[in-house]
């Protein structure tokens, strides 16, 4: 299978907080790669680096072979690559002044000006129906529940028929039953479109459910684990500590004496 996203020797830090050092990763076309990691380890930052929203200090990110941070690449070429990237944000990032339908027509209006408004509306309604919130298209994002907001975020990410999905903690804060439904929906859609997905989470159950391949963010780089089954049987102390929630291990000592 061909490599779709390639991260090479990435280095990034916030003042006083090094996040990545010589981090490399390859994601193949059509696979679902799940990245696990404790909070504050830089998962969201990595997602935003892949989406070209922030600049790395060093290293390259290639999407379909194009170096997205190369200043010599003409902006139009870069924009065309990002047309193929859909992102679901941790905090949903829904446009709160637009209703459900407009949230999905907006990206089309900006990126596909040649498409007629009627077509955009048709597409938006069918996407809303597809994710199961099509019956109230004129409500606003803050009038629907957290689970529905997630669904809207997914529908918006699909508005431009992306080939790559970046999902930043798509089930954060949701209860397990809703989480599982959302994850199932994402998998279904990903299979339908034969898209490639990069999923970030700290929920081991979601990694098991969704991942073709699982990685763990540890020591400023990505520890590749393999399939979910390999994750569960892994003897690597860091993997073991994270998956089982052990209070001692490479991630530090969480043990406390109640004295």
């Amino acid at each position, binding site marked *: 299978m061909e490599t779709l996203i390639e991260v090479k020797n990435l280095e990034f830090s916030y003042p006083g907080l090094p996040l990545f050092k010589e981090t490399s990763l390859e994601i193949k076309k059509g696979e679902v790669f799940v990245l696990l990691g404790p909070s504050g380890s830089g998962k969201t930052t990595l997602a*935003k680096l892949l*989406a*070209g*929203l922030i600049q790395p200090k060093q290293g390259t990110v290639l999407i379909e072979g194009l170096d997205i941070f190369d200043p010599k690449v003409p902006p139009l070429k870069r*924009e065309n690559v*990002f*047309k193929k*990237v859909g*992102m679901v*944000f*941790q*905090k*949903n*990032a*829904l*446009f*709160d*002044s637009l209703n459900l339908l407009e949230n999905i027509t*907006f*990206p089309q209006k*900006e*990126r596909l000006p040649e498409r007629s408004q009627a077509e955009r509306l048709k597409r938006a309604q069918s996407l809303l129906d597809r994710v199961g919130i099509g019956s109230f298209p004129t409500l606003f994002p803050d009038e629907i529940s957290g689970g529905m907001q997630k669904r809207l975020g997914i529908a*918006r990410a699909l508005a431009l028929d992306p080939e790559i999905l970046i999902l930043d903690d798509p089930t954060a804060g949701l209860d397990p039953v809703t989480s599982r439904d959302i994850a199932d929906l994402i998998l279904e859609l990903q299979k339908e479109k034969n898209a490639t997905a990069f999923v970030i989470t700290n929920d081991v159950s979601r990694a098991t459910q969704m991942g073709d391949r699982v990685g763990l963010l540890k020591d400023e780089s990505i520890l590749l684990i393999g399939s979910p089954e390999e994750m569960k049987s892994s003897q690597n102390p860091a993997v073991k500590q994270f998956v089982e929630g052990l209070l001692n291990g490479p991630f530090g000592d969480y043990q406390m004496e109640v004295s």
Partner: protein
Amino acid sequence: MEAIRQMKETSRLIFILYLKMGALFFTHIKKRRSEILEQLAVLGWGSLPVVVVSTASAGMVVCQEMAYHMDLVLKTVEMVPGFSTQFIVRELGVAIPAFLLTAKVGASITAEVGTMKVTEQLDALKLLSVNPVEFLTFPRFIASILITTILTVFSIAITFLTGLLAAVQGYSFNTLQYITASTKAIDEIDLLSALVKGAVFGSVIPIVSCVYGFRCKEGAEGVGRATTDSVVTSTILIILLDLILTAVFASLFR
């Protein structure tokens, strides 16, 4: 030291945004027409009642105060119409709406943009290759200039009328006599100064508000802090510009 560094950074960003607005004016005014119209409606319609109510009462107060002082110093209120109108056109009719708009328009822009920042909506825009400066700042910039100028004219008219009312009621002026004295007291340059001041103040508000909105820090605390700082900075800048413009018009044209 930190405060000075912050101030430098803020003024740098304000300057850059002004330059960008200038460039966008020539390239994007057509493309963003629908956003500009929308902002005109949102910002203008929302601010109208506040400006009307406040300038109406300010007009009366200014007339009464002028009368008090004329009576005190000159022992006559004969000069009240001319002086009141001069003061209204040159200063009050412009300053009162500008200050109210720093709160009404400025704070709401910062709150909106800041919320978009902390809820990652700005990232979502960037991923769609939509430039937030072009999409958010530019329409608000154009709309705010237009609105502030229009509201300035409005507020001068209202202040003048309520001042007239107070003078006729309280100091038994004849309406016609008041209007004649007023028109004699002001000239085109006064009106020009009012419009220029209005437009300048109107341009400051969205620029400062967006600078603070874009730099907003995480969470509810960040949005609250950014909004407060933006109102204060706009107010300070407007006072400074008011002094400069007042001095310029006073020395250039007299």
